[in-house]
């Protein structure tokens, strides 16, 4: 005999069981407000080979595996650092707090760095946080809108006297990041399948993440280059930003030669999309 359960209640109950982080028996007990666990057989029929709970467990078991697979594709280095079990535990805890609410799995991991920062029982949360920040920037650059990059013709069209007040706009996928740990080096060793991973010890890194021709790049920067780029992408005029870099840089202040080299590199790799001279 079937238990009278309306469609809305049935779906609430089944979802609660499926997304529960524990064993299916615990999930059924936790969802007993909707359907008493002892009456499961009045909602789900057994098959020739499986009990109702075992049948539900097919869905229950696949849920976390699917979430783990989605997050692992965006956070391969974090998974490598934590190990399979550690990463799975992190995913299990994360999706309880931040489950998918989108038609797409793309945004599922957007809040993982913040979650990692305060997650309990995590090995080296400070390192993990920065690693996750970098991997999120890469994932977001992958899906960001494609914008044209600044070309030689646009540069040549700027009168020499207009450069001081010119403002450079970065491509839409551009992200500027600073770290206290060598997370960019760590990510690279994971991507290269190189087993000589850097230790999670303090070592500053400044990184620009951007996409060109649908490929995401990570550009290592010096601190002075990072600070200058930060000033430029915040909308400050070129002359003002360079003047600030020379004045406050102290020993790290760039030489004219360095400035020329940086700009040549940034333009050639596609960091900027336009120059505005008004």
């Amino acid at each position, binding site marked *: *005999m*079937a*238990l*009278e*359960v*309306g*469609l*809305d209640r*049935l*779906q*609430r109950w*089944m*979802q609660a069981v*499926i*997304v529960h982080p524990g064993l299916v028996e615990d999930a059924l007990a936790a969802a007993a407000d909707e359907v008493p666990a002892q009456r499961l*057989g*009045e*909602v*789900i*029929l057994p*098959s*020739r*080979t*499986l009990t*109702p709970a*075992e*049948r*539900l467990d*097919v*869905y229950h078991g*696949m*849920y976390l595996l*699917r*979430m783990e697979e*989605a997050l692992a594709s965006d956070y391969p280095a974090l998974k490598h650092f934590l190990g399979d079990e550690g990463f799975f535990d992190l995913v299990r805890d994360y999706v309880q707090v931040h*489950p*998918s*609410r*989108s*038609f*797409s*799995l*793309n*945004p599922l991991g957007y809040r993982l760095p913040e979650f990692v920062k305060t997650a309990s029982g995590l090995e080296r949360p400070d390192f993990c946080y920065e690693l996750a920040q970098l991997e999120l920037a890469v994932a977001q650059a*992958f*899906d*960001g*809108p*494609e914008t044209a990059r600044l070309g030689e013709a646009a540069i040549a069209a700027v009168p020499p006297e207009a450069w001081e007040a010119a403002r450079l706009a970065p491509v*839409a996928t551009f992200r500027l990041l600073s770290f206290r740990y060598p997370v960019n080096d760590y990510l690279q060793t994971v991507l290269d399948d190189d087993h000589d991973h850097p230790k999670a010890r303090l070592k500053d890194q400044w990184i620009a993440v951007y*996409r060109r021709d*649908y*490929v995401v790049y990570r550009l290592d920067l010096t601190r002075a280059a990072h600070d200058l780029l930060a000033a430029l992408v915040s909308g400050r005029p070129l002359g003002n930003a360079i003047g600030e870099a020379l004045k406050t840089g102290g020993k790290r202040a760039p030489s004219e030669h360095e400035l020329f080299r940086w700009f040549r590199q940034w333009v050639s790799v596609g960091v900027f999309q336009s120059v505005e001279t008004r």
Partner: protein
Amino acid sequence: MFNRFSLPDLGVGIGLRTVHFGEILAKKPPIDWFEVLSENFLDTGGRPLYVLDQVAERYPVALHGVSMSIGSTDPIDFAYLGKLKELARRTRAHWISDHLCWTGVMGRNTHDLLPMPYTEEALRHTAGRVRQVQDFLERPLALENPSSYVEFAASSISEWEFLARLAEDADCALLLDVNNVYVSSFNHGFDPAVYIDAIPADRVVQFHVAGHTNKGTHIIDTHSDHAIPEVWELYRRAWARTGPTATLYEWDEDIPELSVVHAEALLARGHREPQRATGTHGA
């Protein structure tokens, strides 16, 4: 017999998958058509959309979704449908399909194709939503029969009767996945031939064929292998009822080289009536 929606037989296609992007763009293989997993292209401005634009220039495409959640008791997500409609326009998709299922409630998405109870209440509920979706999309929606691992005690209608009545009540199209019929028949102990014979053939606009994983106690619809002969036999049986109908081979896990997936898809031609076999589009 052709389908009542006059949607074309596109021939034998495969799913557009990331691992094959480079080869498809470089070699432009002679594949009849591609099925596109809608959600992978709705919220990205990156390479996937760039590749899709190239593919849609050269090949016929159809959109296949996994997040419409047509059976859910949550409100219909019209923002999602708006993006879907735009993607269909952009790619000149021949049709849009999704599954007879729900994927979540209370604003959540489990990203699984969860089964419906086959009740009169669920039938009324789902048919009303299909009509709303079709009105919004301004085209018929093709609904796919799911693979399922549970049966609800409350179900008073068989799955095939539910699908047939739903298609009639909502005036929608059907995507008949013969592997799903086989998987569910194993898991629930029904005769798959009865299912195939009960589907309104004139509403079937597409077939899916795929491999699965037999766990002994149950079968999981993994799309990770070659189709077994029993599944091809169901395809042959169904095709004899529908006539020329677009067919798609699904391979989503442990995906082999493009040539292997395509070769598996082309096996479908051997199961079609020879006099009705269609030519190759695309290349």
